[in-house]
């Protein structure tokens, strides 16, 4: 059986250059990725990490760094609740479509038990919706996913 994979596509009214910067610059990711800063030397084989308030959340290695078309890195979730999850892979493909850029995010090589797939299926729409808002309106949105709202009630 092949390992689970996840694909999300969004169209953003921006340029490939601005979108590329938003994916690789920690001051941008911090704004739309709910406080997560991404840092790396950004070259093939280099390590990268996603941190939140200085705490490591995700780490991995850059697989492909092809500005402004394709970015891929391995994904090792450092959150305690994801212990034993293994290493998966995230690929961002950017394709100009007239005045918009088609962004395809593929998260594959996920764990066979389906837990990581469930977790990231909830996360990517929030992150990528916020990225689109930031690039198109200059503002990000305070998102509280409905399941969390129910837990708080």
């Amino acid at each position, binding site marked *: 059986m092949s390992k689970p994979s996840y694909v999300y596509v969004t169209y953003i009214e921006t340029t490939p250059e601005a979108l590329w910067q938003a994916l690789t610059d920690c001051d941008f990711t911090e704004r739309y990725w709910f406080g997560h800063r991404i840092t790396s030397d950004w070259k093939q084989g280099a390590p990268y990490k996603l941190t939140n308030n200085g705490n490591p959340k995700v780490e991995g290695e850059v697989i492909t760094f092809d500005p402004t078309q394709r970015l891929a890195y391995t994904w090792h979730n450092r959150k305690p609740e994801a212990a034993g999850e293994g290493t998966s892979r995230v690929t961002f493909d950017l394709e100009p*479509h007239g005045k918009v850029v088609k962004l395809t995010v593929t998260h594959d090589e996920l764990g066979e038990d389906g837990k990581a797939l469930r977790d990231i299926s909830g996360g990517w729409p929030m992150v990528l*919706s916020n990225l689109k808002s930031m690039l198109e309106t200059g503002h990000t949105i305070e998102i509280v996913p409905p399941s969390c709202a129910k837990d708080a009630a």
Partner: protein
Amino acid sequence: MNLDQFKPLTVYTIYIASTPEKVWEALTSAEFSRKYFSGFAVEVEPKLGGTFNVRAPDGSEHISGEVFEYDPPRKLTVTWNVNWPDLVEKLGTTLVTYEIEPAGEAVRLTMSERHDRHLSDDILSGGRTGWPAILSGLKSLLETGKAPQIKMSPPMKMLEALKAMAIRTP
């Protein structure tokens, strides 16, 4: 129609800085849909069992169906049948559900496309290509006041798969 037989084969979730009422209006009014849905006009008779149509820019009825669940501004389910000869007969009915939930300053919109049988990834590729473009446009329209024109190429994989099933396409 036995709902239990219908399984979601394509699901798309998007968060929009808007209110449930505005998202509902954008999904159900022709004036809005023409702006984000390549000029197509969505026409919904606002009641359970009412008619549902999507009219092409030339005025022809591209999709026709019926309102199956009607709970404004939270949930809308319609039968979504593309009017190509033999398509519904061979692929079965398509059900499309929109669920709208408050999510902080945003609204979470979840679109599920359900079918009562297995369909190949090639057949499903039409919707999987189309929905992100349509709903990205809807989000832009509600957040910025205008929807970008997204140039789409024809869904070749789907058209070829339909041809292979002897379903005539325009």
